[in-house]
């Protein structure tokens, strides 16, 4: 899916899109998050398609505005459209994006099977972003935003966010 996705993105537009960040996770660019599905110049206009992480994600409107603003700074006129299909998955977060998440204090999503085991409390595998221990437990399936779950480390006692796997 990732490969197919990239094909629709005009490489000359990538540098601008890499400078636009998720307003709620300001270390993750829209490119690294994998929400940009299409970016082409048609005529004298930049056409961008983005897909929401979660249906009600309030950050989507801000992202669309930020994209238009970023291109406006380069004197380019951009138009952003929201598309639903195919639905976004955490698999589209790039490796660089996952590292940025961890550094920011949000544990990156595990694979689907491991994610389920972690959320059901069957296995202690989510690594604490503060001390690195896997002696952690889920406090709540829903964290500060829809895309995250709240965890706590039983070693350093600190709470942290875990980016839930979405498939």
């Amino acid at each position: 899916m990732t490969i197919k996705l990239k094909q629709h993105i005009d490489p000359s537009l990538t540098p601008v899109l890499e400078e636009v960040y998720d307003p709620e996770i300001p270390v993750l660019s829209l490119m690294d998050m994998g929400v940009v599905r299409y970016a082409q110049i048609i005529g004298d206009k930049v056409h961008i398609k983005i897909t929401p992480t979660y249906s009600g994600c309030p950050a989507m409107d801000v992202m669309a505005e930020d994209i238009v603003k970023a291109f406006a700074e380069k004197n380019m006129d951009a138009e952003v459209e929201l598309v639903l299909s195919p639905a976004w998955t955490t698999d589209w977060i790039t490796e660089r994006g996952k590292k940025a998440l961890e550094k920011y204090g949000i544990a990156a999503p595990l694979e689907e099977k491991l994610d389920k085991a972690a959320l059901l409390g069957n296995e202690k595998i989510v690594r604490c972003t503060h001390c690195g221990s896997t002696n952690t437990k889920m406090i709540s399936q829903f964290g500060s935003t829809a895309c995250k779950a709240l965890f706590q480390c039983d070693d350093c006692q600190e709470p942290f966010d875990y980016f839930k796997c979405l498939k």
Partner: protein
Amino acid sequence: MKNDNLIQYIFSIADNALILGQRLSELCGHGPSLETDIAMTNMALDLLGQTRSYFQYAAKLTGEDKTEDDLAYLRTERQYRNVLLVEQPNVHFGYIITRQFLFDAFHLLLLQKLQNSTDETLSAIAKKSIKEVSYHFRFSSDWMKRLGDGTEESHAKVQEAVNNLWTYTDELFHNLDSDNEIITQGVGVDLSELKDSYYEKVKEVLTDATLVIPETKYFQKGGKKGIHTEHMGYLLADLQYMQRTYPNMKW
């Protein structure tokens, strides 16, 4: 109105998400604990997000100069097609969780079928929503077990909620005559087909939660035809206040 049957069908799905989303958002800042508060408002956000996708599509289908806001805020009570279950009030946490659980189990089954709809937009919205609703169902099922198999008091409260809300479950599976064509075209889902798997799934969780399954044969219905319970008017007064007071206002 053009595409009237399809628009009505979309309402029958979207209004459930809208009204339950509204009920859950009433809890913002009022949940019994920070985590449950955040969880329920997160679910409200998912449901309202799904509603927006449905309404944006329905607004386009009207072929008139309508917006998602017109559809959400400017219909009268009789024009809302949500089931009675989702408009029931936030009596207490056990009640809220039971209402959520009884709806989530249905919602997930519905979306699993709707993703195969011949209508591309409905299929896309369903595929997106399934991922979110799976989390809702997991959350509400976990809480059913925790409350049912919890203290004497939590057990009694949640059992009472099950007994009360059970009477609203049958309506989930009613197809309306106006939906027949939509179902035959493969656009909509034949709800009666979901019934057996629904009760099987629900009973499994309730049994795990040490709760007794009600044996009532009497069921309430009407919401889908616009005949709502007394709670609906109050809910709509809250929901529609801004648009009614300041027509055409925008954020």
